[in-house]
């Protein structure tokens, strides 16, 4: 079932949680709503589920307008960040809840519960109470409970946020496989870009109640639409400066920029990812000179912190191990830095009337 959001806004007192959000989630996709806290991603998810109402705008499931439909009639499975299992019910009763309130026959309930316990690999734990389970197990029960009623879509609010790193990693892979088997349209909220990129087919980056960019993980990472997306997705070196007649001058960074050819200068910010900076020992024409401050081996990469003395700017560079061994850098050495590429964003000029 596909989801369409048209111009949804929501305000909590003085706080504008969502302002005019439009979004299309294709049927059967796995979509991540990614953004910092307060960006409105959870509010949007709850509006889709019907647990929160929108001030304006429409929500459509497969062209059917469900804006005014109560949550319990939307047929949506919702998984909360902190599991929210019914604490007085056993695991099996929790999973059976959705079926029982729909007055499903007892034999069907029993077989479906067994099926789901098997699916979430919790066979034999059906008679436990939620308090007797670990965090990862509870989250799997919450998932089984949401799936029991065969929802047409699954919404997950920071599903792995409260779990430790290893369990989170494991559950991500598991959920991804589960999605491939079942093809239920799934939307999940996360503030962890790694999680979003690892799991989702479609990433929706949100900020301050607006959608900054929608696209595949590759697209969003390689072609960030706005400076926020660039900044939010991973480490980046930021250079503030200006562009004039096809050239960018931003502190230590000085390069051609064909995107702006007019003569009057305009403020611009250049973003260069750490792996997009190349180091060399030979000083070259127009290259930036910097001193190595710190070398940190991190797996297959070496993270290097540099100081461009002339500008008092610190730079982060990621380099593959082989290259670092080849260069044999050490702290305090002077190197020249060459950006392979840079992404330049110009804020809208502020017109004074």
């Amino acid at each position: 079932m596909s989801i369409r959001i048209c111009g949804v806004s929501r305000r909590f007192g003085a706080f504008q949680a969502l302002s005019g959000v439009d979004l299309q989630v294709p049927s059967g996709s796995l979509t991540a709503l990614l953004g910092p806290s307060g960006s409105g991603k959870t509010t949007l998810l709850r509006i889709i589920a019907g647990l929160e109402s929108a001030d304006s705008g429409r929500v459509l499931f497969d062209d059917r307008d469900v804006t005014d439909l109560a949550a319990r009639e939307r047929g949506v499975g919702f998984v909360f960040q902190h599991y929210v299992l019914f604490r007085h019910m056993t695991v099996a009763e929790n999973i059976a809840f959705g079926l029982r309130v729909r007055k499903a026959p007892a034999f069907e309930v029993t077989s479906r519960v067994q099926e789901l316990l098997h699916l979430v690999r919790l066979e034999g734990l059906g008679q436990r109470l939620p308090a007797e389970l670990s965090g990862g197990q509870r989250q799997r029960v919450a998932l089984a409970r949401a799936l029991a009623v065969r929802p047409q879509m699954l919404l997950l609010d920071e599903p792995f946020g409260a779990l430790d790193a290893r369990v989170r990693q494991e559950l991500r892979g598991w959920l991804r496989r589960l999605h491939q088997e079942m093809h239920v349209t799934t939307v999940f909220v996360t503030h962890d870009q790694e999680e979003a990129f690892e799991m989702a087919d479609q990433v929706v980056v949100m900020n301050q109640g607006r959608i900054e960019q929608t696209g595949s993980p590759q697209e969003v990472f390689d072609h960030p639409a706005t400076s926020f997306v660039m900044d939010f997705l991973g480490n980046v070196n930021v250079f503030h400066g200006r562009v004039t007649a096809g050239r960018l001058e931003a502190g230590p960074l000085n390069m051609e920029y064909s995107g702006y050819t007019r003569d009057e200068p305009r403020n611009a910010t250049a973003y260069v990812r750490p792996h997009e900076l190349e180091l060399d020992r030979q000083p070259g024409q127009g290259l930036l000179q910097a001193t190595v401050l710190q070398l940190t081996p991190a797996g297959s990469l070496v993270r290097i912190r540099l100081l461009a003395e002339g500008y008092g700017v610190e730079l982060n560079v990621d380099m593959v191990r082989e290259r670092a061994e080849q260069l044999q850098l050490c702290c305090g050495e002077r190197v020249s830095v060459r950006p392979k590429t840079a992404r330049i964003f110009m804020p809208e000029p502020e017109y004074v009337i």
Partner: protein
Amino acid sequence: MCADSEFEFGSLGGVFGEHGVEIATRESQECAGCDCAYCDVRQFVGDEIGFTEEFPLSEECESEICSVNAFAEDFDLSLSDDEELVSVFTFADEFVSEGDGFWSESVCHSGDDGSGSVRSVRATADPLWVRVLLIGSALTVTVVLILVPLVYVFVQAFSAGVGEWWSQLTADPDTRHSIFLTFSVVPAAVLANTVFGIAAAWTLTRFQFRGRLLLLTLLDLPFAVSPVVAGLCILLIYGAQGWLSPLLKSAGIQVVFAWPGLVLATTFVTLPFVARELIPLMESLGADEELAAVSLGAGPWQLFWRVTLPNIRWGLLFGVIQCHARAIGEFGAVKVVSVLTLMALATLAAAWGLEHWALRRVEQVDQVEQGG
């Protein structure tokens, strides 16, 4: 080693709740495995009781020395320079009751000689006079204010024998009527307040609306208002000259001086109990489980019976018990709306008497006139 220095070891012990500590003076540190008193204690602890596991106190590090140091800090064991905390251990269950005895015995054993630097450490003990004063005053108040009057009630009730008590209880129509009223008014009031309390707690914790705080405050009003005043208000509103009397009269309902009035008064006085018990509970539970139930397709009633009620059941039970106790004990408000019945009867009787007397006077006058 220490074979000839049996009493030179400072073996100190203490009991902290379920934990025991072992403190040794520094020179005894090298002693291990000989048969001196200090080693005996260790041996006994290890072999006989079998609770040598260290109590993990420090979260950062679980090594023995960290947990021992953290313990010393937590319990503010002030150790002198030549003393060292050797270990901390948790007592096995069967040992806790005897813990004090064991330790004082071992401490005394090495302390008898006077040569060992023996010290008994108890972190939880207040001075004796504080304990005596606090426990004594609590007991005094309980006995004087509660126990003595309670016992006296029973003594008086049975002073003329159980048979007399029973016949008073069953034969006297007034007593029978009072008991009947208690057993009919109280359940009605408690039921009304249970329903109201759940509804109020739900409203106040699940919805945000204008006047929410005002409602929350008004809920406590029955605690502040004197029951007699409450009764009077009911009298003034529902009584013969009250605001609602024309309406009630036309409907043929009597409120004041009747069963409905008693229920009203009792309900008013016991109003806050259930709601006050449930509001903090429901606030701490939050609405998440209810939202989860809604997203799974539960209707309002299913939501209440299957999710909310099981979660609040103990709080609700406690509120109902409190409400019940207060309802049975309530007298002030009930007195105003019921005991006045007697006064009203007296007034009626007086009026009837006067009329009768006046009538007879008129007849007498007539007779005199006829006779004259």
